[in-house]
């Protein structure tokens, strides 16, 4: 239990790994486009946690700065993705990505 008591780098990495896997799972399996988007946000957050954790234990500012830009990117991505989803909804009357398979063959 010594390890659990001492909050170290691995704790944060574990949280990040869990968030990442959950996000991935959402992206892989859910049919609803909005949930997929949420999964992507989870993945980004996982990455952010990683960045910040390493930054802290490394003493540098790179991770901090990067996570800032990740947030900016996430905002942009969310805006565009939602716009696309709304368009898809207009065209297919659904946000079920499995029905959007015009690329098939």
């Amino acid at each position, binding site marked *: 239990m010594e390890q659990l008591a001492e909050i170290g780098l691995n704790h944060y990495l574990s949280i990040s790994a869990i968030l990442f896997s959950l996000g*991935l799972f959402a*992206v*892989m*399996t859910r049919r609803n486009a909005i949930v*997929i988007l949420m999964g992507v946000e989870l993945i980004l957050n996982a990455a952010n946690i990683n960045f910040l954790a390493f930054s802290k234990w490394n003493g540098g500012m790179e991770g901090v700065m990067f996570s800032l830009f990740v947030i900016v990117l996430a905002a942009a991505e969310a805006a565009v993705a939602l716009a696309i989803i709304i368009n898809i909804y207009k065209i297919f009357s659904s946000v079920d*990505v*499995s029905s*959007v*398979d*015009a*690329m*098939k*063959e």
Partner: protein
Amino acid sequence: MHSLIQLSIAVLLLPLLSFVFLIFFNRRLPRMGDFVGVGMLGLTFGISAYIFWTVIVQHYDPAFRLAWDFTWLDFGNVPGVGPLQIKMGIVVDNLTAIMLAMVTLISFLVHLYSTGYMKGDKYYGRFFAYLGIFTFSMLGIVLSDNLFSIYIFWELVGLSSYLLIGFFFEKDSAADAQKKAFLANRVGDIGMWLGILILYSQFHTFSYREIFEHLAAGEFGLSNAWLTAAGILLFMGCVGKSAQFPLHVWLPDAMEGPTPVSALIHAATMVAAGVYFVARIFVLLTPDALHVIAFIGAFTAFMAATIAITQQDIKRVLAYSTVSQLGYMVLGLGVGAYSAALFHLVTHAFFKACLFLGSGAIIHAMHHEQDMRWMGGLRKNMPWTFVTFVIATLALAGLPLTSGFMSKDAILAGSLGFAETEGSWYFYLVPVLGFFSAMLTAFYMGRQIWLVFFGESRTHLKPADPHAHHGAHGHDGHEEEHHGVHEVAWNMRLPLVVLATLSVFIVYSPDPLDGGKGWFMKMIPTPATVVGAVHAVEPEAAAAAMGPLVAEASPLEGHDAEAALHAETPMHPEAAHAEASGEHGESHAFADPRQAEIAHLSHAAHNRAIQISSIMVVLGIGLALIVYVFRFIDPDGTAEAIRPLYLLSFNKWYWDEIYQATFIKGSMLIAAIFSWFDRNIIDGMVNGVATLTRKFAFFNGSFDKYAVDGMVNFTAFFVNTSGGVLRKLQTGKVQTYVVMALLAVFGYFVYYFAQLVS
């Protein structure tokens, strides 16, 4: 720059100017700009006459030579050769001056004549433009001082000849003829080009003068066989252009062109260019090459004369006569009768141009009827044409008191001298064929005169044939039925009169029996050979003989590119001296004993030649009179009696058919074979590679049918098949893709850990 050089350049460029101006603006000018062409040529002729007057009449100098050149191409400092420059330039000497005057005079007269003959044609202005570019190219040949530029102008006259033969290009026969002419000339040209290359590869220069100097100094690096080959190959250019056997077939067909063109190009000037060119390179021809030339000339003269006997078309008779006469000139050069050959070139140019223009006048007056069978009795209707035509005919047949008599006899005397010098019996074939051709010439010209001008008109005998009208070129508007045949207008009559005047002996020599006494033969002496000297005499002696020349050449070595006038020393001062004082043009000293021997024996044979040829001519004319005037012999019956010979002659010795069956069919066959080869074998090889590839790839024959279309198609097929398999994975669902990608990542994880563990 010497003023004569400046004038020569003006002479060269004025016709070009006329061409450029007329080709662009002829439709915007009144009368389609014919006055531009005629005016320019008049000016050109004026300048040429001035040059002629200055050089030949006023200040005759046997060694006169003016040259001017400029650096045309600069190859820089070429490894292994040193600084290399290709120069272009012009040269004016006695021969050039005479040729200039002759070419521009005939060209001017033809221009003038064409204002009448071509009147009303759809492309009237373009005709004068083409004449302009022809005159330009022809003058270029005359003025060139090196082999490269003569080759350029050589092909350019080929082009203008092509354009003018096909002037009535809507007629298929004209289009065929122009193509044939160009291709036959090209065949000759590649020979000439190879000859030029042989010389260039040794000396790295194209200039005549430098090549001759190097040759005289014995610097030719290859064997003598190569030099002989060079001579014969250069002569091939002449074979093509001067329509010698075996490339003579294009000239008769070239009569599809308008008649003034036939007069200018295919009788007087262009075809004579071949002879002129051989004269220019005369000094580098080895005795073996000269033998070949002599025999080809003799055979051509004879063969063409036999064909001319049976032709029905007035222009074709004249065409074969031209081939025959060119054969004479070539023969003359081959036997070493240099002056005589050039003399014949000039005299022939005038009387043959006169004959062609005369025939043009007849054709014009007869509304484009060219078949002599339907003419007759024209002497009353066309007295001017008749008289001039007869004078020219007498000159062609070689009757005394005409120019043709003097020049032809000089050639024949030369051939006798040649045969005696060479000794072997078969060299006597040359004079024998020559004399026999003289008889035939007299015969067929007598036949022509009779058929055209005497007897009664046979126009009405012509079978009615809707396609017989040759008036395809612009006369459609005023096609009239045959009514009276009238004399042509003054602008067509004047050239006839001028040319006929120039066919009389007095212009050339005071003695009607001996051209050697005339100014021409005196002023154009035979130059000393540069190869004979090398091969006949020791090199030191040759160097000594050419001493002044080589010594004089050295300051020229470093001569800069700038235009400069070379005031040059005589090619052979002692010869010039002997000639100036001697009575006969050919009696001067030669460095080469063979040349001297021929010259000597030719002179001795002079009287014999006159006697024999006079007998021959009288025989020929007599035969013509017997057959056509007195009708002792029925021509048709005779033709039946010797039918194989008649057919041989009438079908032009079947040369066209032979060429058609061999070269043309052969080429088309090869083309077809190669094309098939390309499609089936080469592409098939690609396919074969594909098959192999496929066999290696899938050692299963069941995919055979997919690979038939070659490697290319096979690859496409392969991509297609594998794509077919892979597209099952292509669900179109993004998430499936994600899963797959991640599976790959996961696979990598597993691999990585396995590595880590082991």
